[in-house]
């Protein structure tokens, strides 16, 4: 039990973070693409396509952060101080883009300002998340179970590149979401943007995938030694195939395929990260077992999670189903 519980929790939190990345990814992506819309009614249409969902989507971030605290308090207590500035930066950016959803509809003269807040907030939040990811992968200085580094340890070219990667990736999710959920000029433009973004995402994924094992020996060992390499070589291949499929669907005019391909790309990248880093939660010092909460605490919340998570996913799906179909220009909820 002492061995399994932290693994189960790592899987649960991993699932929550994956869901967050995909779900909030597409609505942050819409913010990232906001400046490229030409007319106000196009922006209205873009925002309307995510307005009923964004709040629920963002809740997975709370579950990710809260879950980390519950299940791995010692990891939470190291990661947050170590990545203090990017974490706070992300939170402030989320404040701006979150209120923009409501303020924008009421504002008259300052509407442009909230367009900017929505776009800049979404982009900065995505960038910060990438930097947090990069900062984690490259490793955190730990002594006696406490963060022992400086305030800017995270600020490396690698982490900044990860930041760019997440921005571009979310933009792809957003663009393919718009292909799925809108029509007219917005859908057409999104399709063109997505074609470019697929290529950019693949390029960035390749760079990060090569850079990581070169910079971090632990990752190189994981991927390139026997027998691991025998099992792992299909991962990049499948990724390339999915990217091609997404690009092909975009060209062919398919509405659903591109979004599914974009999600698959994210999940594959995510799987790659898990393969590189498991069982470390705070590489290179702390594993899931080092940082686990008391078994009594992990079990207490696990029971509730196993009951509640399917219910939550159930009503999530239900709400997405209620608001199914395309959002047309001029069709608003407000």
């Amino acid at each position, binding site marked *: 039990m002492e061995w399994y519980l932290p693994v189960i929790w790592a899987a649960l939190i991993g699932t929550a973070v994956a869901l967050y990345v995909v779900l909030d990814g597409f609505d942050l992506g819409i913010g990232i693409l906001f400046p490229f819309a030409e007319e106000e009614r196009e922006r209205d249409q873009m925002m309307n396509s995510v307005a009923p969902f964004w709040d629920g989507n963002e809740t997975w971030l709370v579950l990710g952060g*809260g879950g980390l*605290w519950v299940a791995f308090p010692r990891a939470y207590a190291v990661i*947050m101080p170590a990545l*203090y500035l990017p974490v*706070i930066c992300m*939170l402030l950016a989320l*404040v701006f883009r979150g209120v923009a959803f409501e303020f924008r509809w009421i504002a008259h003269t300052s509407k442009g300002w909230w367009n900017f807040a929505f776009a800049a907030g979404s982009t900065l939040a995505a960038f910060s998340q990438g930097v947090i990811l990069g900062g984690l992968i490259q490793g955190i200085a730990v002594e006696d179970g406490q963060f022992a580094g400086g305030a800017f340890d995270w600020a490396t070219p690698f982490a900044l590149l990860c930041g760019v990667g997440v921005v571009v990736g979310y933009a792809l999710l957003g663009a393919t979401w718009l292909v799925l959920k809108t029509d007219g000029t917005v859908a057409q433009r999104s399709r063109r943007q997505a074609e470019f973004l697929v290529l950019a995402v693949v390029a960035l994924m390749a760079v990060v995938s090569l850079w990581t094992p070169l910079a971090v020996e632990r990752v190189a060992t994981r991927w390139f030694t026997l027998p691991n390499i025998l099992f792992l070589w299909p991962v990049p291949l499948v990724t390339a195939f999915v990217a091609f499929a997404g690009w092909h669907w975009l060209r062919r005019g398919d509405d659903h395929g591109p979004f599914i391909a974009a999600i698959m790309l994210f999940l594959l990248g995510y799987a790659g990260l898990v393969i590189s880093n498991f069982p470390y939660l705070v590489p290179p010092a702390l594993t899931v077992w080092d940082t686990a909460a008391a078994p009594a605490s992990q079990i207490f919340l696990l029971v509730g999670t196993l009951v509640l998570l399917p219910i939550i996913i159930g009503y999530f799906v239900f709400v997405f189903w209620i608001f199914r179909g395309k959002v047309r220009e001029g069709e608003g909820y407000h």
Partner: protein
Amino acid sequence: MDLDPVLLARLQFAFTITFHIIFPSFTIGLSAYIATLLIMWIRTGRDHYHRLARFWTKIFAVSFAMGVVSGIVLTYQFGTNWSRFSEAAGNIVGPLIGYEVLTAFFLEATFLGVMLFGWNRVPRWLHVFAAIAVATGSVISAFWILAANSWIQTPVAYEMRDGTFHPLDWFRIIFNPSFPYRFAHMLNAAYLTTAMVVLAVGARYVLADRHYEEARTMLRMAVLMLAIAAPLQLFIGDQHGLNTLQHQPLKIAAMEAHWDGSKPGDFHIFAWPDEANERNRFEISIPRGASIVLTHDPNGLFPGLTSVPPSERPPVLPVFFAFRIMLAIGFIMIAAGLVGAVLWWRGRLFDTDWFLRPASWAWSLGFIAVIAGWVVTESGRQPWVVYGLMRTADAISPVPGASVATTLALFVVVYGIVFAMGIYYINRLIVRGPQGGGIEPPQRGLPNRPITGAEEGGREALAGRG
């Protein structure tokens, strides 16, 4: 420059949590109010309930968005600013927050979409269900958050191992000694806060001769709520105080600025607590008032601040004054409820200017009282973060003061902008008023003021008969 990281971390947390609590205090009550309006609309078929529900839903959306984004910040700040606390108390406080996310946050956030955007998309019953789900979610959320907060105020059912708290009995942890009082007090406070806002908006419209039916319904509902919940709050608060005396006597000593425990305590209507000299200046007091309230005996004794060394005392000034502010507002609300009820009974509720004018300005009172109350309970438990067990100074993260100072400045700027604009936009929505109304109001103050059907409907619905 030498920056005190403990003070900065506390300032930052105090700022972000004060900002945050404004919105839940409002949205807990408002979601329940909207759900009530929708239920009344379905049961009576009267359209003005529908217009009111739509109107308040717009305001709710703006407030809820601000509450959500500032709430996410808090989930992460435990780690960014209080990592040693998170590590030590994570085993116990963590799961309570986790349950809040799973049982409440998701429920609210998901059904909010249906509630805000489902007007023409889903059947009426489903829309009402979504509103009820959001209102229920907000109560469940308060339940877990207050359970967590109460546990660090009155920790029980734990065991210390290597400087970490380990849980022994989850039921006792959740229903810890101060929890039932704090939960009841906060929930009721949220409903009162909303009632004051609804009262103010209703009064504003009546005075301006706008939204005839809607304004009258709002006034009646708010007065009814205040007349019941405000006196109830006095009772809950009193019980909460007795509970605090039992578990955190020094907080009570600071609330009453009571220094010497060997003498009965006076109730100071005003005083300037002088912490350096351990006495009060400029006292205006009801002799033995505090002893009577707290021990029900004019000669009753309760611990004074000097019973512990200064390093273990809470800051007296903020606790003392915040308590008085909360108390004063509590009595104003009781008065508003009772006066309003009498005027309603006499049929003068809608043409008594000396009641309506102050009422139309009173929207902020509930918020001030809630913040003051939290200042009392949070400052009053200092210098402890887990009461009697872990000092606040030992709870902070190993983060340089400069980082905390920088982000504090950013929080002040960002929240300042968001808050100012939020208030401005909410005011704009209120100025615009409920939309889609049909008949314009008859003039206010006419003799033989007609008792409209809506008025009767409202009264019946309020009495619970629909």
